[in-house]
């Protein structure tokens, strides 16, 4: 008998009886679709919320000003020019030379301060992890209240890979001291910026 069949057979032989599958409520009363909540949760987990002043019409100079001169950007959003041609990367590992990645999240989750990003946004998934810093644009209109609403979305079923990202790479594995920039990006900056329509 194959391992597959023998495992399935011993599960059946265990003779557990099926019980009902509960419906999961969305608990809307506790989780308003509020940008303020998103911001609080994001900052709690270590992400930086960076809203441009209302008179700022062009995003690119604003983003560049957040980092020192000479910083090399790999941007996959039309709002910010990229210092790299994406097609010049032959291997994901080559993204390790990038200082700052710039991407747009498809939506955010207010409850947890999470951004939803898939391969469609990243173009190369390693963009979210190998650069030293990550900047993510989020349209304040693209927000759901909590994770129950997030998981009702079809986006998860279409993406090969997707992540709910809620902060920079972090660890507290040595004496409980919180360190940002464990293996991946050292900082995550979220900029509210409407999607081009």
């Amino acid at each position, binding site marked *: 008998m194959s391992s597959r069949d023998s495992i399935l057979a011993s599960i059946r032989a265990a003779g557990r009886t099926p019980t009902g599958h509960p419906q999961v409520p969305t608990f809307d009363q506790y989780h308003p679709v509020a940008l303020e909540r998103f911001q609080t949760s994001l900052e709690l987990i270590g992400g930086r919320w960076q809203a441009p002043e209302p008179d700022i019409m062009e995003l690119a100079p604003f983003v560049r000003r957040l980092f020192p001169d000479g910083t090399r950007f790999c941007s996959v959003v039309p709002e910010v020019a990229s210092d790299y041609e994406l097609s010049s990367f032959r291997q994901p590992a080559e993204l390790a030379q990038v200082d700052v990645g710039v991407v747009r999240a498809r939506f955010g989750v207010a409850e947890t301060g999470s951004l939803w990003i898939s391969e469609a946004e990243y173009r190369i998934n390693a963009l979210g992890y190998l650069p030293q810093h990550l900047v993510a644009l989020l349209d304040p209109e693209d927000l759901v209240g909590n994770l129950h609403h997030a998981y009702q979305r079809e986006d998860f079923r279409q*993406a090969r890979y997707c992540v709910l*990202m809620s902060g920079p790479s972090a660890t507290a594995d040595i*004496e409980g001291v919180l360190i940002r920039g464990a293996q991946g990006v050292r900082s995550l900056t979220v900029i509210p910026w409407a999607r081009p329509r």
Partner: protein
Amino acid sequence: MKAVDHVAGSKKFLASEDHVSFHDRRLWDLRQGRDAQMRAIPEWQELRTLASQIKEHTLGQLDHYLEMFERNATANGVKVHWARDGEEHNRIVHEILSQRGVTSLVKSKSMLTEECEMRPYLEARGIAVVETDLGERIQQLDDEMPSHVVVPAVHKLSRDVAKVFADKLGTDPANADPYYLAEQQRETTRPIILGAGAGMTGCNFAVAETGAVVVCTNEGNADLSANVPPLHIASIGIEKLIPRQEDLGVFVRLLSRSALGSPITQYTSHFRAPREGGEMHFILVDNGRSARLAMDDFWYSLKCIRCSACMNTCPVYRRSGGISYGAVYSGPIGAIIDPSFDLKKYSGLPFASTLNGSCTNVCPVRINIHEQIYRWRQIIAEQHQLSYAKTMAMKMAGHILQHPMVYRTASDMAGIALKVLPRGLSYLPLNVWGRQRENPVPPAESFRQWYLKNRKQDTSA
């Protein structure tokens, strides 16, 4: 196999006061963080009930959901493998790697691969395996098991890490600054990630209806391991299945809140299909799980989502450290899982508990942990696996509790003994738990004395 002596292991840990006090405080902080999150979520108890029901439902027809998962993952372009035990799991991983000429594997944390003892298996066959989670990397370099399922090196102080890194990575032995140490690990691990031929992750949840696996990390190291090399292998315990995508909402909301007191891990990553030009393999591993499913008293432990809340709250775990359990799983969850792997070897672990029930109260999937601990004790006693000291103590306790007169005398005597005996005598050398702790001040009168006096007053009034 020789039985694990948890008491002796604890004694070693208790010998260093600053280790014990840091460990105790750090885990209690995590427990308090969890409590704060619980209080901030009005629907918390309802979520726990839902999580428990969904897991129970899934385990009730696990064969059905495993087949559904396999079907959907295969349709997504993933190659699905099945492994009866750790040995078969390791063989499959080795085959996948060796067929492709891969000699370097980077991985994120997985308790399952610890269970399978995969690292030594692959290393003996010429494949370099590197853990990318900081805590797990510390443990790998120190050649020690993880002592905790979420924070693997929590029993170490930074000076211990400095020593391990100095020995193995050549860092400055005098520098025990956690920032320095973490940066050293980042700098030494990154080139290995960039050059690795394959990446491996564990699995927190496997969704039957989409065929996706979900991995939760704070370091983003699962995303690196899976997204940088061209080949991704995920090892999945068969109990990780959940039926629907929308069930994830319940579990993801509970997991990190229960574990670390944060609303969610930094990265909750969903792997459904190989990326373009890449390759993805899922290995479904039984390794004793289907046998546990058949145990009427213990199958409920398969609901566990490895959050570690039961460990963080357990007074025995906090003061004995995970290494003292001598097993992959430590703490209260280890005390009920480990004996199902090997009853003789782990017969001491169900006694590493005060049966206070706190583990059960914090469990996000409502496993009756302390009741299972008690049940294991009964089984171990029935099979005469108790140590001599415990058997004699139980016999005496049984005699005393059966005879009210003897009980009263003994309890009065105990009160007197606490008052008059020198401290050295009440601290028997056998009682390692007595170290660093003081006996309570005996009450002025026993409950019985109080009751007799007060009832007398009542009747005379």
